[in-house]
């Protein structure tokens, strides 16, 4: 409701447009609305008929959004060394830091004398993950990163949603150190 301020005769809190007669008979506005939707309809139909995609939506499994932000926190990646072993040293900082408690790490002794530990089991329960990125920030050796895309993070049961070490590594097996891939603050 508009309310007049005392002392200011012409001012109202809400400056609402007056309805004209044309608005009130409703018919012209209906016609205008239908013309707008009809314009959209024929524009999209013209695109389909000339073998282009009408509409602005993305046919998800076949198409991916090209405009994911590079900082988007999507699926997790376990970064590898040049010999293919995980860079992770099983310090469990990410698991400790994880607010959703979805990271499970079991450490074992590494064969390499320069490296003390390595993960025997590295599992992320994606169905519990809240994609906060704290694991990436906590990691002291840049062993875990997050790709910008979220594809294939879907499954028919909850056990499918637990991603093990192999899966996390082979999503993007090699990560170039020069290029920041995904979320890596």
């Amino acid at each position, binding site marked *: 409701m508009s309310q007049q301020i005392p002392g200011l005769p012409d001012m109202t809190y809400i400056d609402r447009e007056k309805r004209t007669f044309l608005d009130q008979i409703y018919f012209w506005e*209906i016609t205008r*609305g*239908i013309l707008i*939707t*009809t314009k959209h*309809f024929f524009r999209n139909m013209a695109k389909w008929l000339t073998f282009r995609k009408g509409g*602005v939506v993305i*046919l998800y499994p076949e198409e991916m959004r090209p405009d994911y932000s590079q900082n988007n926190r999507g699926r997790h990646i376990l970064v590898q060394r040049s010999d293919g072993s995980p860079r992770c040293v099983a310090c469990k900082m990410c698991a400790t830091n994880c607010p959703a408690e979805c990271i499970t790490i079991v450490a074992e002794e590494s064969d390499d004398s320069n490296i003390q530990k390595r993960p025997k089991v590295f599992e992320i329960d994606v169905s519990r993950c809240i994609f906060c990125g704290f694991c990436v920030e906590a990691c002291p050796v840049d062993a875990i990163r997050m790709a910008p895309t979220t594809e294939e993070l879907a499954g028919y049961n909850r056990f499918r949603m637990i991603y093990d070490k192999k899966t996390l590594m082979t999503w993007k097996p090699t990560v170039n150190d020069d290029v920041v891939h995904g979320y890596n603050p």
Partner: protein
Amino acid sequence: MESTFFGINTVTFITNLVIAGGIFGFMFTMGAVMSWSERKQSAQLQDRIGANRAGIPLPGGKSLKVWGFINNIADAIKCLVKEDFKPRAYDLFMYNLAIFFAFIPAVISVAVIPFAGEVHLAELFQSWYLKWIPGLPEYFATNLPNYVFRVQVANLNVGLLFVFAVGSISVFGAILAGWSSNNKFSMMGALRACSQMISYEVAMGLALLGIIFIYQTVDVWSLVQGQRELAFGWLPKWGIVLQPFAFFLFIASAVAENKRMPFDLPEAESEIISGYYTEYSAFKMLMFMFAEFIEICFVAIMITTLFFGGYSVPYLMADGFHWPWGAFTAVSHGNVVLLELGSFLTKVFFFCFLLQQARWSLPRFRYDQLMRLGWKYLLPLALLNLVVTVIIVALGGF
């Protein structure tokens, strides 16, 4: 001696059977087509894509999708095999009966609508598209040289009244469904549907009275014949030309009668779940939806027949085009029938499109607004239109 079939002339029997089958088949097909176009058209105008996943797998890894049309078949199968939920209804007999009260009136009103003009059977079989049938053209030319039939299921001289009478019956479908479901939401929807349909029927009937006055008939066939005449020698006397105001009143009240957006208060899902068919599941729900889609098609047919000259093509007479500037283009009888049928279907498809477009463009009314529009605006305006029409008719205007 002519052969008879249960006392009816065999040829009459067969032509009537073909016409009735064709017209009712058309209505059922339109029910499916409308439910498809409701999906796809709404998707197109909202910049979406619409149903495009269901398909029949073909050899070679591809699948036949027909632009989402297969989705209808998937829906029908789903509705046939899913659980037939029954509420602890107050009256199970009425609960089941309501479906037919909703479905059958939607289908049978079309019986009085002419889909094309008079067809001369012997001449029709001389046309390029039926000539190839062996034996029949010669048979009809020798045995039935003067047999003429109308592309209309029932030639009732009270056609328009029949449409109204049958249309009122569908109120029972809504009220019975709502009452027998033993559900508050259903009851609310049924009450809304009932009062809305009765209110708007008044406005709709009064809007059409002008048409009846001008053409001096309630027989739908004669109405269309009247619209084939020309005013001033060049303007077809279509209902939209003589009664432009009644057209808008009719289209508004017909959409309301049909319980479609922006008048779909009885099924307002944000307020009362699904209105009077909340408690119906599986194929019963599908029957209600199917009836609704057929009714849209029927509203389009009524608009075409009453306001846009039905099957008539401007200047096309039985022998060809009589152009207003005096020229004449001869058209063979077979092509005349095709043109009339095509003209009718084109108009119907256009209005189906328009009604769908309106349904997806407009927001829903509030209930008091709906009642105010019906009783305080449409009804007086329809009366005014009627009075003006009557005065003009009395002064010999048309």
